[in-house]
């Protein structure tokens, strides 16, 4: 009951000095955002939050606490997407304490109440921090999914010849995806030659080579032959010094050579018209 009454007193105080506190809070926050949001926008956001804080603290409104958390979550999430640092968002919330403290210096009898109030605001600040982290994680997860989807095209070069231009680092998850997509395309299109172009793969170590060999083996099981091309000079040196053996898999310097090889295997020849 002690805390409740102290919260109630604080809520009354905040309601009484609403304009002054919001004004000061707004100044502090605007200084922090350094022109990334307009003063009017900031003020509107803070006014909403402020009235929710009062409602939550006066204890008469059951839903207010939930609404306050939801509003802060939303604010923090939108700031995360707009590139604010999490500390900036949290400091924005914490600066409400500064604004109130400056005023309360003139009313010493409220200092114990201020202590409880301060705890509440700390919790809210931490909430924005957590939400911020969660929102960023979500963004990262979305981006990596998008990258996965973008990074594995299988293109048709000719009747019965498909190519997979590999760009970026090959890890197990990506190899799996590339393998599945390639095999499905082979089955769907009836292609029996596949060109794996690794021009865009920055490094080839034993693990990447293992992944490539697996893909080639799986394609062979379906009855399709793979040609690896686009091995850059440095990559070739690494492959040889690591002792990686591509065995009887055809390797060519460029995509053009690989296509010519696949065409000749299919019994076709490109000549002057």
């Amino acid at each position, binding site marked *: 009951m002690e805390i409740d009454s102290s919260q109630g007193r604080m809520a009354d105080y905040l309601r009484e000095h609403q304009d002054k506190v919001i004004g000061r809070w707004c100044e502090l926050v605007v200084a922090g955002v350094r022109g990334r949001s307009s003063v009017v926008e900031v003020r509107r956001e803070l006014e909403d939050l402020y009235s929710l804080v009062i409602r939550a603290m006066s204890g008469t409104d059951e839903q207010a606490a939930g609404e306050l958390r939801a509003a802060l979550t939303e604010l923090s999430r939108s700031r995360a997407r707009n590139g604010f640092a999490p500390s900036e968002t949290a400091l924005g919330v914490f600066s409400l304490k500064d604004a109130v403290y400056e005023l309360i210096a003139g009313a010493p009898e409220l200092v114990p109440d201020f202590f409880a109030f301060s705890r509440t605001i700390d919790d809210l600040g931490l909430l924005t921090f957590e939400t911020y982290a969660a929102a960023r994680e979500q963004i990262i997860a979305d981006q990596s999914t998008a990258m996965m989807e973008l990074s594995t095209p299988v293109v048709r070069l000719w009747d019965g010849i498909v190519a997979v231009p590999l760009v970026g680092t090959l890890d197990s998850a990506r190899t799996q995806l590339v393998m599945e997509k390639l095999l499905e395309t082979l089955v769907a299109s*009836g292609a029996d030659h596949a060109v794996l172009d690794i021009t865009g793969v920055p490094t080839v170590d034993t693990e990447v080579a293992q992944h490539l060999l697996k893909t080639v083996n799986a394609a062979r*099981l*379906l*009855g399709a032959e793979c040609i690896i091309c686009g091995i850059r000079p440095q990559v070739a040196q690494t492959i040889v010094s690591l002792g990686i053996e591509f065995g009887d898999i055809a390797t060519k310097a460029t995509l053009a050579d690989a296509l010519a090889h696949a065409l000749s295997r299919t019994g076709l020849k490109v000549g002057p018209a």
Partner: protein
Amino acid sequence: MERVPILKLGSTLFVSIQIDLQDESVVRLQEDLADRLAATRARGVIIDITAVEIVDSFIGRMLAMMGSISRLFDAETVLVGMRPAVAITLTELGLSLRGVRTALNAEKGLKLLSGSA
């Protein structure tokens, strides 16, 4: 136990597996295939596994063994119609079926046999 039929088309034996493979039916198939190869003196075997959705290491090894057995009768084996998921499983199991030739579908498998004959 279900049995897999072996059809003779000219000098080729055609095995189309349309059931979920159990260990015994694969063993039985292998025996039947050896009998038919000896009896018909076929030059090629086509094993169609389009309908096979699941393989394990045993079935993978039996497929490879059927290839080896056929070679003893001087017949070439072509495994056709493997599904991507099956190919990935066999690769992960480390079975590359070196002794068996593969083709995307039965038509290409037949072409492969006639080309090598």
